[in-house]
């Protein structure tokens, strides 16, 4: 029992250690900083946004225009309907920071369960699950999203379902590989001898020890999911308007990009900076984990 009691504390210790180590990688810190910035913006959106994101102020205002009625400056201008772009970017960060982690989280839950089942039990579980995964992965992902969302309609729930369906097999492959390696360790044999259930062994013995590569993968994948949500919005398949959604903002303003480039450039810069944050953080974590 003692070593079970020790496991959680040592894993928190390891997590704290890698956070401390991350300080040494300026790339990782830069990425964490970018993410933190957007998380804070999303958290304090009601305080930070100067206007209601749906309020109609002054159509086609260029960045820095003074809005006479309220006496405020529209720092990033307004869109074709006259809505303040800064406020829409700020509120839009909530949309992406809710749906991207939610979708990635769901994909991880499904992927981890499938991967553990395939890698730990092996046998026909492995054959069936791997085959299903291969089939889904051999099909272009974006096409899958588009067909699912075009058929069932664009909503936050459907976006989460589509992303879970398409990303879970990739996560399953990684978890399966790790589980195939970890299942032969002594501590797994020890807990099998102790008579633990296979559910307990998968969740308590194998999963915590597979966390390193999974955390790095989660960062990269979050970046991809943010891109995907942006792309779906850009193709007109994202959250239904008038919700402020970065990809959707680009889609709405696309036809006017020639005369009013700020309407498309600003949301594009926002989405790129957030994805960059996750990719840099993943790089930093990878660098730190190699140093151990």
């Amino acid at each position, binding site marked *: 029992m003692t070593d079970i009691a020790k496991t959680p504390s040592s894993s928190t210790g390891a997590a704290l250690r890698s956070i401390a180590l991350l300080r040494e990688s300026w*790339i990782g810190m830069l990425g964490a900083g970018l993410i933190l910035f957007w998380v804070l913006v999303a958290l304090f959106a009601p305080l930070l946004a100067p206007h209601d994101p749906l309020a109609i102020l002054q159509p086609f205002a260029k960045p820095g225009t003074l809005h006479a009625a309220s006496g405020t400056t529209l720092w990033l201008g307004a869109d074709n309907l006259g809505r303040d772009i800064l406020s829409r970017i700020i509120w839009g960060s909530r949309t992406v920071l809710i749906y991207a982690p939610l979708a990635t989280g769901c994909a991880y839950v499904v992927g981890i369960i499938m991967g553990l089942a395939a890698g730990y039990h092996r046998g026909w579980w492995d054959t069936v699950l791997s085959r299903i995964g291969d*089939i889904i992965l*051999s*099909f272009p992902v974006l096409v899958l999203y588009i067909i699912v969302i075009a058929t069932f309609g664009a909503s936050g729930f459907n976006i989460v379902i589509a992303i879970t369906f398409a990303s879970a097999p990739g996560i399953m492959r990684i978890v399966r590989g790790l589980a195939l390696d970890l299942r032969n360790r002594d501590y797994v044999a020890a807990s099998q001898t102790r008579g633990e259930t296979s559910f307990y062994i998968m969740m308590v013995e194998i999963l915590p020890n597979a966390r390193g590569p999974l955390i790095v993968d989660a960062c990269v994948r979050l970046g991809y999911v943010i891109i995907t949500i942006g792309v779906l919005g*850009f193709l007109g398949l994202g959250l239904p308007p008038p919700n402020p959604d970065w990809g959707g903002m*680009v889609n709405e303003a696309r036809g006017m990009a020639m005369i009013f480039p700020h309407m*498309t450039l600003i949301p594009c810069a926002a989405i*790129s900076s957030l*994805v960059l944050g996750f990719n840099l953080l993943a790089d930093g974590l990878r660098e730190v984990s190699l140093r151990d």
Partner: protein
Amino acid sequence: MLILIAKRIGFMVMTMVAVSILLFLVLEISPGSVATKVLGQYASDEQKNIWLEQHGYFEPLWYRYGVWAGNFMTGELGVSHRFKVPVGDIMWPRLWNTAVLGFWTFALIIPASLILGVLAGMREGSKLDRAISITSVLTTSIPEFASAVFLSAIFVFGLKWLPGTSGMINGFDPTQLILPVMVLFLYDFGYVARMTRASMAEVMTTPYIRTAILKGLPYRQVIVKHALRNALIAPFTVIMLQLNWLLSGVIVVEFFFAYKGFGALLLEASLNQDIFVIEACAMVAVFVAVATQTIADIGYTYLNPRIRFS
């Protein structure tokens, strides 16, 4: 080798069957909405029913799937609801256009990412390595629609050097290819460059490279004769797998630049529930995916004899 190919063909057939059944189930769940998409929102129920009956929608699902599958085997792909022409007439020219786009993209990605990746991996941690690594993270972090917006702002609206759309209305125009190729290049080259760098960096730490350097061979010879050959095995696989990625990557780019390619066709068909076009495109996509994977595997065993003995 023959066993591998036979296995892959088996897998391809299995995948095609699974994907086509799944698509049929998803797309034919509500035939009423198909009729609405074809006839418009203001069509009466009676008109919709006539259309549905004419197109065999009152037959059971398994029967319609059987008819489609039978026709597919004989090369008969059906008629598009959306474009009102046989699917083949519209799909093959579109596929060719995308192949042209893909050819130029890969003609740039392969040399650029291999050269940069090898240079970065040769001296891990050097300033050049850092610069190349950061550039590739930056370019892969910018979604395709965003880099399309950025590049259009610079080259179309700012400098006015390039056309902003690539519809090729007045015949083939190479200048209209430049922006789509640039966007695809930017998004994808970073990944291949990083894989090449990792592979090169790994080779550079092996004992036989150390031996070659220590016995006094010129550095250039060590790189060209000893390191490169082994370092380029992994990128070969990565590049082959990127071909599959290209099929979904082109959707955004073709939509943005109004390029008449495979991705734009697939998008339009999906938005209009044009089942026969979607099925045919999906079969092409599965074929490309499995074929590139197989070529990658065969190439890998050919390039790396160790695999054959293990």
